[in-house]
């Protein structure tokens, strides 16, 4: 018998603490598979965020550094500038990256820091108990928008990838999803491309991954994948938003 698919070496043996059906686990696996395939585990430094994935450093079997809330791109900047020969990535949720960390991500992208950000967007604050995030959809019910998010009070969902794509320093920005196997395969390709571009010194790369939060959305995991497809995809369209050409 021959192994077709197994846990990548770049993940530790520790069980994920995530809720049943939470797609953080899928995204962790994709990043780890890419580290394995590019054979970069020994020279990769990951920066963990605050939020549900705060314990990411327990799961990735590479060097990891925890950052304070939203500051992962600033920490990554320092790490990469001291260790330009290393591969540096941040793994951040939408509460971390799109709210308290907005300044850090915008300026890291604008400076064209040669790092890769994995931005996990599930349209809600997970760890703190399902509050409205900047990425929450209009009409979406959360613990702090019990009647649904209203535009006149809280504005529209913030589209971080579109925002960063206009910056000169951004080399590659793509939005992907993990709501079905086809999209999971595409998501992995995008993550691999971002890491490859970092290895080539192309500049700032970010992959936004649409993710689920069955617990705080208040639905079953299988239903959550469908909810993502029907509600998030029309607002957050999976697409390449920026790809700097050769010589740029």
């Amino acid at each position, binding site marked *: 018998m021959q192994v077709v698919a197994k846990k990548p070496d770049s993940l530790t043996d520790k069980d994920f603490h995530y809720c049943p*059906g939470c797609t953080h686990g899928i995204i962790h696996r994709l990043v780890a598979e890419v580290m394995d395939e590019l054979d970069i585990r020994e020279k990769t430094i990951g920066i963990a965020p605050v939020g549900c994935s705060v314990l990411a450093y327990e799961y990735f079997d590479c060097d990891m550094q925890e950052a304070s809330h939203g500051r992962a791109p600033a920490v990554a900047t320092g790490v990469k500038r001291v260790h330009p020969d290393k591969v540096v990535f941040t793994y951040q949720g939408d509460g971390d990256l799109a709210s308290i960390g907005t300044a850090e991500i915008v300026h890291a992208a604008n400076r064209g820091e040669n790092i890769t950000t994995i931005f996990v967007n599930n349209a809600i604050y997970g760890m703190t108990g399902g509050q409205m995030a900047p990425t929450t959809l209009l009409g979406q019910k959360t613990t702090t928008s019990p009647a649904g998010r209203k535009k006149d009070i809280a504005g529209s969902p913030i589209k971080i990838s579109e925002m960063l794509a206009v910056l000169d320093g951004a080399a590659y920005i793509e939005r992907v999803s993990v709501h079905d*196997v086809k999209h999971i395969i595409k998501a992995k390709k995008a993550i691999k491309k971002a890491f490859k571009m970092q290895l080539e010194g192309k500049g700032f790369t970010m992959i936004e991954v649409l993710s689920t939060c069955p617990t705080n959305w208040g639905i079953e995991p299988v239903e959550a994948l469908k909810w993502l497809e029907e509600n998030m995809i029309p607002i957050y369209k999976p697409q390449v938003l920026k790809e700097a050409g050769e010589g740029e």
Partner: protein
Amino acid sequence: MLADIKKVVIDREKCKGCKLCTTVCPVSILTISEEINSHGYHPSEVTDQSDCISCGQCYRICPDVAITIYKED
């Protein structure tokens, strides 16, 4: 003999019973067990190994990396 060959192996202690794998299996051999694991979850289980085509779809959607896929040489 063929029935003894395991092509899809689910780590029942890692599995949290989210059912995502049961929705993607093209040959519908994954189901949720009536037994519970030490964490209190009903893990996913395989009904008929001989029907498995080693496509790896369950591995790809599993959020807990609880599945290993094999194929015959």
